[in-house]
């Protein structure tokens, strides 16, 4: 075996031992790829989860009672109000997201074909609930009214239907999305954290000095941390994908897991390099942790993993093209959700390879330059 490769291998094995004997980091790795994945999958609420709705029923007719009884948990959390007066205060204080007013004579007017109006007030500061919740409430009300009317007189006009189908995730199950995105985010976070911590640990313990007087080059030192910590994250992610996502959460994965892992490895090349780079900029673990917070949050939140990229301002979209997470997320979504293969994701592969090479080169340059100050 070539001595350079042998050294890189041995130093990497040493990193693995170091991680193995660091209980805090081990617990973090295990936690983030099991509990955290599980909870982010299951805790992600359905959009309508016990949305508080206040109902003022001024009609008190069989129809209005039918409507009132159609709002129930888990989607809605109804509370009945006697008068209109409480509505504004309740909405102001954020007690209710919705307030429904059924006017006097509603049933009478419906039966007379006078098209009476029901008022639905929505607190639009609660974005997520407001939009889909109001649509859902409308469906419920109109459905109840239609059902009531249908019993009274049987008329049905055939119309043009819209057959809505969600592809790739037919039931729009949030666990799907949440679990895989949690893995993606954790891959990024842990790879930066582990690699950075591995270098800072050497620095804090003074062992970097030892390495530097030995016949090993900075390139070998850096590569050894990149491969070993990258491998740990990759193995943990694989485990999580098979046992937590597919096993525990029973999520069906469309595409090729091998392709996903290959792309994850490319991504890890970029993020572990970032970890080294950031570790050279900080002297201690606390400083590194603070820098991590500032770097990681934009990396994750603007990658398209939590909200669609096309909703972001154009300059943010373009800036984020330089971030590996953007391409990793895009490729992961294509492969894992839509079952896309290499013919679809090759642009991401190229991007990731380019970004990874650039990051590695930059980090190596900085690592070389700062080594003298570390010892």
């Amino acid at each position, binding site marked *: 075996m070539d001595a350079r490769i042998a050294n890189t291998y041995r130093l990497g094995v040493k990193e693995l*031992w170091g991680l193995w004997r660091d209980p805090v980091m081990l617990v973090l790795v295990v936690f983030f790829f099991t509990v955290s994945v599980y909870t982010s999958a299951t805790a992600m609420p359905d959009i309508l989860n016990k949305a508080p709705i206040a109902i003022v029923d001024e009609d008190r007719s069989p129809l209005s009672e039918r409507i009132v009884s159609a709002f129930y948990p888990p989607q809605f959390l109804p509370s009945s109000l006697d008068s209109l007066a409480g509505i504004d205060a309740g909405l102001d204080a954020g007690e209710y997201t919705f307030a429904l007013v059924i006017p006097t004579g509603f049933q009478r007017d*419906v039966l007379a074909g006078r098209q009476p109006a*029901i008022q639905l007030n929505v607190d639009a500061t609660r974005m997520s609930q407001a939009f889909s919740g109001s649509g859902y409430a409308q469906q419920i009300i109109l459905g109840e009214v239609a059902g009531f009317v249908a019993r009274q007189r049987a008329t049905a006009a055939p119309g043009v*239907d819209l057959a809505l189908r969600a592809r790739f995730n037919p039931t729009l199950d949030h666990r799907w999305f949440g679990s895989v995105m949690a893995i993606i985010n954790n891959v990024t976070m842990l790879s930066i954290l582990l690699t950075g911590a591995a270098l800072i640990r050497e620095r804090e313990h003074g062992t970097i000095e030892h390495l530097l007087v030995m016949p090993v080059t900075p390139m070998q030192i850096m590569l050894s941390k990149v491969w070993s910590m990258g491998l740990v994250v990759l193995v943990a992610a694989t485990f999580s994908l098979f046992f937590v996502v597919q096993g525990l959460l029973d999520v069906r994965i469309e595409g090729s897991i091998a392709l996903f892992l290959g792309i994850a490895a490319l991504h890890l090349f970029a993020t572990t390099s970032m970890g080294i780079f950031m570790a050279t900029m900080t002297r201690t673990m606390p400083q590194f942790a603070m820098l991590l917070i500032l770097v990681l949050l934009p990396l994750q939140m603007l990658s398209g993993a939590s909200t669609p990229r*096309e909703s972001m301002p154009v300059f943010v979209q373009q800036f984020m093209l330089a971030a590996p997470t953007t391409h990793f997320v895009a490729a992961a979504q294509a492969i894992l959700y839509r079952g896309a293969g290499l013919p679809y994701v090759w642009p991401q592969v190229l991007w990731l390879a380019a970004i990874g090479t650039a990051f590695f080169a930059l980090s190596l340059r900085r690592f070389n330059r700062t080594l003298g100050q570390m010892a």
Partner: protein
Amino acid sequence: MSSSTPSVAARLDAVTHHYGKTLALAEVTLVVPAGRTLGLIGPDGVGKSTLLSLVAGARAVQQGRVEALGGDMADRRHREGVCARIAYMPQGLGKNLYPTLSVDENLQFFGQLFGHDAAERERRIDELTRSTGLHAFRQRPAGKLSGGMKQKLGLCCALIHDPDLLILDEPTTGVDPLARSQFWDLIARIRAERVGMSVIVATAYMDEAQRFDSLVAMDAGRILATGTPDALLARTRTTHLEAAFVALLPPQKRAGHRTLVIPPLPATPGAADIAIEARDLTMRFGDFVAVDHVSFRIRRGEIFGFLGSNGCGKTTTMKMLTGLLPASAGRAWLFGHEVNPKDIATRRRVGYMSQAFSLYGELTVAQNLELHARLFGVPASEVTERAAHMAARFGLTESMDRLPDALPLGLRQRLSLAVAMVHEPELLILDEPTSGVDPVARDHFWELLATLSRRDGVTIFVSTHFMNEAERCDRISLMHAGRVLVSDSPAAIVRKRAARDLEEAFIAYLVDAGARGDVPDRPVATEAAHATTVPPTPDARHRHVFSLARAWSYSVREALELRRDPVRATLALVGSLILMFIMGFGINMDVQDLTFAVLDLDQTAQSRDYALNLGGSRTFVERPALASEAELDRRMRSGELSLALVIPPGFARDVARGHGVAIGAYIDGAMPSRAETIAGYVQGMHQAWLAERARATGGTGSGGPAVIETRFHYNPAVESLPAMVPAVIPILLLMFPAMLTALAVVREKELGSILNLYVTPVTRSEFLFGKQLPYVGLALLNFLAMALMAVTVFEVPMKGSFAALFVAAVLYTVCATGIGLLASTFTRSQVAALFSTMIGTMIPAVQFSGMIDPVSSLEGAGAFIGRIYPASHFLTISRGVFSKGLGFDDLIASFLPLALAVPVILATAVLLLRKQET
């Protein structure tokens, strides 16, 4: 509480102390006489520091009784009463100082803690700095002082309040001999002025212990002997305290110890056999010259010593020789090859042992040996054998499977040497290899060095600040301030100066070199008159009411430190702004520019009309039409299309005839929340198309039996930003201030300056509130910046009362920083503080504070947390003011719980903070 027993300064009775399972003190009984100097001698880890911190009241007594200045130190009231009369200088250069603060700022801080007014502080600081020679350096940051000056500053800080009991823990370790003798002269002068002041000193230098009135020799948590230095020498029939100490050790510890004799270096035939040569080696860091034109030649097989204080350039010189640091100027040769950091081959001929123990704590002894052997290219077949051989030679065979951290210091030092020797180098560079090791282990270590040099012909280049080690070298260089003062054999150096011993000779050279910069400007004697007029320290009874001055001194200091720490300052100033910017754009729920394509299997005017209806909206962007199902599948899979419509054949015909017909709409379900929104839009469009068509044809079935009037309040356009921004502010205003405040306290724990809380009259509440204040100020600044950003960058209007929001923000930031203080009371490391605060604030703030789900819809523990957590109430106020146009009167129900949370959080933090180390 008065010093009614002047003959005794402190008394320990059967004191036992454990750290976990480690025994630090075992049944120690000791009387410290008043008005005298008592020295504790012994190597590292024998319990000296523990004993001193117990007497100082910095550490809680576990077992036994500790009295100081006439009272029980386990009694809180006594401790609070006497702490102003005790001065404690912990171990470590400048341990209780603040490195980024200048000499002056450090002294001002301590003066304020002891309640001196500005004029009094200035007078004392002036006196103290003049008498210690620090006057010229008053503006220099403490971190940039030399070791000796740091210790003098530490002493000034300790003496600023005229203590009756001065406790010094290894005050001169690592300080050059001149500075050391100056330090002791200073103490002697102070004692002459303040008759009756007692001093307890711990030291690892046996030679300086000769000066003290009485000595206590300690080993393994026990007292070996007490008595005057002369009595100890007489008792052991030795001439040196070091030898006396060895003689006092229990027999099994002395086993195998013998007086070390190193045979003289045989004269080599040719003078050409030079292992190391340095010519004018120079190292500059900025405008600081660490090593200044150092030259020397070391023969093969020679033991060459570098003697000097901490920071005199020994380590830097060694690093240049190993190639760790590129020299700024000058050249050096190892075995005739010029030193070149890129020259891997020379590295194989050198073994290096750095100052602190720096092997891999996570690898076992065997793994450490094997790793180093492999990296140095020992053939794979020989690695195990070599490791075993080294272990046998250095007495490590029984420890092969243990982790280095579990080994005693002496054994670890031998492991370091074994690792440095594993590739059988011809040259060993050892940087202070025996610091803190007990005399027996040290002699054993030197025996190994002697064998290596004399038998194996290994050249040894060693640095030390112990005189007796220097005496063992063949030749030494005395170093000071980056320069070599003299190089010769120890005996020759002593002869040249006609000195009594090496120390005296060294001091003579130091004086010649002009190392007088920090000697007193004027004699202290003239101050004796002032000193006696100094009023006695303030009455103990007044000292423990909350003092604004002391709290303020902590605030000022915290603000100064924060300003000088770029990473924390950045995080504090712009961290939340950066995040607000990101979250404003990142958590954008608006759906726009959705791509869609149509698979029109009908191709009639009617079907095209349907597609046009969709393409005409701002939300949707039409892409080239689809030709087949396969293309639909492919383009959706690639993520190009978010929506695909399939209009079936015969669509127009069936519609016209009134037959039921279904249009297929395929949505990309990869991102479920987005898919739901898309579905909503598509349904809306479909309904609109139906209504339009009904109106156009005037047919039946149009218009349902009832109408729903939906009114979107506060945010009629249902846009993300106006909804998100007021909710993001409370979260950011919680996370960063809490994190930074937690760090502020835990940092002091990590760096050791928390001792100032333990041993000065500052109370817990003064400490916490003082530290909190700058962060509340910063958080409010952040709040104003975020509010401004919301209104300008994000264009979210503020409809309600800004005054109400501001008052709420004040209350809220006090809560947020209070939560940080609370977190700091139970975390020990900064990293733990950082992560626990982040998790502890983010989870309740995001999940239970009504950001996503209203608090009213929560159940169980979540509902309880949501009802009491300050973030819930501030969120309601923020949304109320920004979006709902509310003011004080409308939001009173949220103000009350917020105001109530302030005292609850702060009181809990104060109660949980400890005023002593356990």
